[in-house]
């Protein structure tokens, strides 16, 4: 009988080696991999997200938890893909920091937490023009495009990306925005489908956007 509480705790504490070992043990015992993923890894990471939201955990703790989660994912992911072509993914998100902006701490946190929540993340990096967002969204059949900006001078580019997706006939892809100077009101202004105030809220937003698609 798997002890998911223990696996959750190891993810929470960022114990990557233990997470990898136990995940492998459960796989070897024949426990369904989707169960290990959802009840063991994703459930552990979701507590991390909640505690981060309420300032119980901070960025360093989140990063080591995400690293532990990745160690577990490395065990189950190939099996899930072999089993059913990765239908376990909650959705595909293309993430990037917009042109002129080199900041990536926030974006990377969102990527890690979203991956920890079962999304397939395509991280195109920082300082990205709209063409790169479009190219990646087409190539990976994105459900959502997530844009990040830390500067008031770069956030107007988010509108450019939203507009260019419309112009390219990709208006059905959901657009999400976030970053220190960005707000819900700003998301409405630029025509985005949603705003994430922090990494956990962004993951909630991705779930909502995928459900409404």
């Amino acid at each position, binding site marked *: 009988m798997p002890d998911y509480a223990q696996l959750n705790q190891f993810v929470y504490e960022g114990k990557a080696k233990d997470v990898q070992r136990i995940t492998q043990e459960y796989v070897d015992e024949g426990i369904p991999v989707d169960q290990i993923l959802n009840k063991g890894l994703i459930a552990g990471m979701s507590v991390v997200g909640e505690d981060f939201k309420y*300032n119980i955990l*901070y960025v*360093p*703790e989140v*990063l*080591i938890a995400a690293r532990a989660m990745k160690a577990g994912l490395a065990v189950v992911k190939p099996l899930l893909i072999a089993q059913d072509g990765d239908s376990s993914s909650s959705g595909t998100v293309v993430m990037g920091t917009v042109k002129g902006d*080199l900041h990536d701490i926030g974006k990377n946190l969102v990527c890690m937490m979203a991956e920890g929540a079962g999304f397939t993340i395509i991280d195109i990096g920082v300082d990205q023009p709209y063409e790169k967002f479009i190219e990646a969204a087409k190539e990976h059949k994105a459900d959502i495009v997530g844009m990040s900006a830390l*500067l*008031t*001078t770069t956030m107007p580019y988010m509108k450019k990306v939203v507009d260019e997706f419309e112009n390219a006939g990709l208006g059905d892809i959901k657009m999400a925005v976030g970053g220190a100077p960005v707000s819900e009101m700003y998301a409405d202004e630029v025509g985005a489908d949603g705003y994430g105030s922090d990494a956990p809220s962004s993951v909630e937003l991705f779930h909502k956007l995928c459900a409404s698609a």
Partner: protein
Amino acid sequence: MPTTPHPTATRSEVESTLRFESNRSIPLFMPAIYEHKGHFIGKTPSQISRDPQLLAQAALKEYEQLGPDALAIGVDVYNLEAEAAGCEVTYYEGDDTSIPGIKPGNHVIKPGQDLTNYPVPNPLKDGRMPVNIEAARIVRKEIGDDYWIRGAISGPFSLAISLLGAEDLFISCLDDPEFVNGLMNYSAKIIKEFAKGYIDAGADLIIFDSQASPELLSPTMYEEIVLPVTQDLIAFFKTQGVNDVPLIIGGNTTPIIDTLIDTGANNLLCDFTGNWEEWSDACRGAKRALRRNIAPQLIENGTPDEIYAVAKQEIANAGDFPGFIMGTAVIPFATKTENILAIKQACIDAGS
């Protein structure tokens, strides 16, 4: 000497506010102008950040057009020390007004690296440290001695992020605290050298350490990792004759007010997202000057009347707080000068 139609505070007037002795009716006005400096002379941030003459010219225009009560010399303030130590900075050419920065992956230190004998940059030779130092020297010569000019320096945690990369540093804080302590000490060595360069050029100092904000790093980690090094730096600056040291950490730093007071900096920041009541109570008790920022979005997109009203309200909220400084978050490049002057006007009107 450049002139400004807007009255500025003398050095002794500034000092009396910073030392919590001021009964000045006009609050000090210290806007955060970095990339926006280029706007005053029609140059981009990348252009002014690499040329001491242009940087000085831009700072002098800032003085003339805004009449701030202090100037800060610097544009991309988190890059210079790391660049001098070997990190690659991305600049933007042509009319691109993006701010230079260090791309992820272009850091020079690796996790766990032994930094005992790692070379410390020479501020007179390496990277763009000489650009800022020379610009400070020019501005000091033009404006004279009776005015507060600060050379912008990175705080130790933000510099450590620039040297190593954010994720590696945050993870190392938990995985390898000994390495992080070594990296913080190395950062401090670089900062001290850069500071000496500015001081020789006739400038004081202003420290920026926004990446140590509690929005990223826990208050406990700030206390354990950042506080001792910051205390050491501020004590060192005092031995070099710099007694008034602003420590600027953006974001909501309310959870670490007491720790920031313990750094020894006598001029702290309550950003526009911070809790003014909590901040001013703590600073009143500890006799620390406190800058209150107005949000950059308002200054960029609001009307002068709207901005004036917010500034007036902030000044009213400060009441009889002796160390009050009216400030702004970093002003975006294309902000209209009249919008910034609306804040200056609110300060002047408070004294009439």
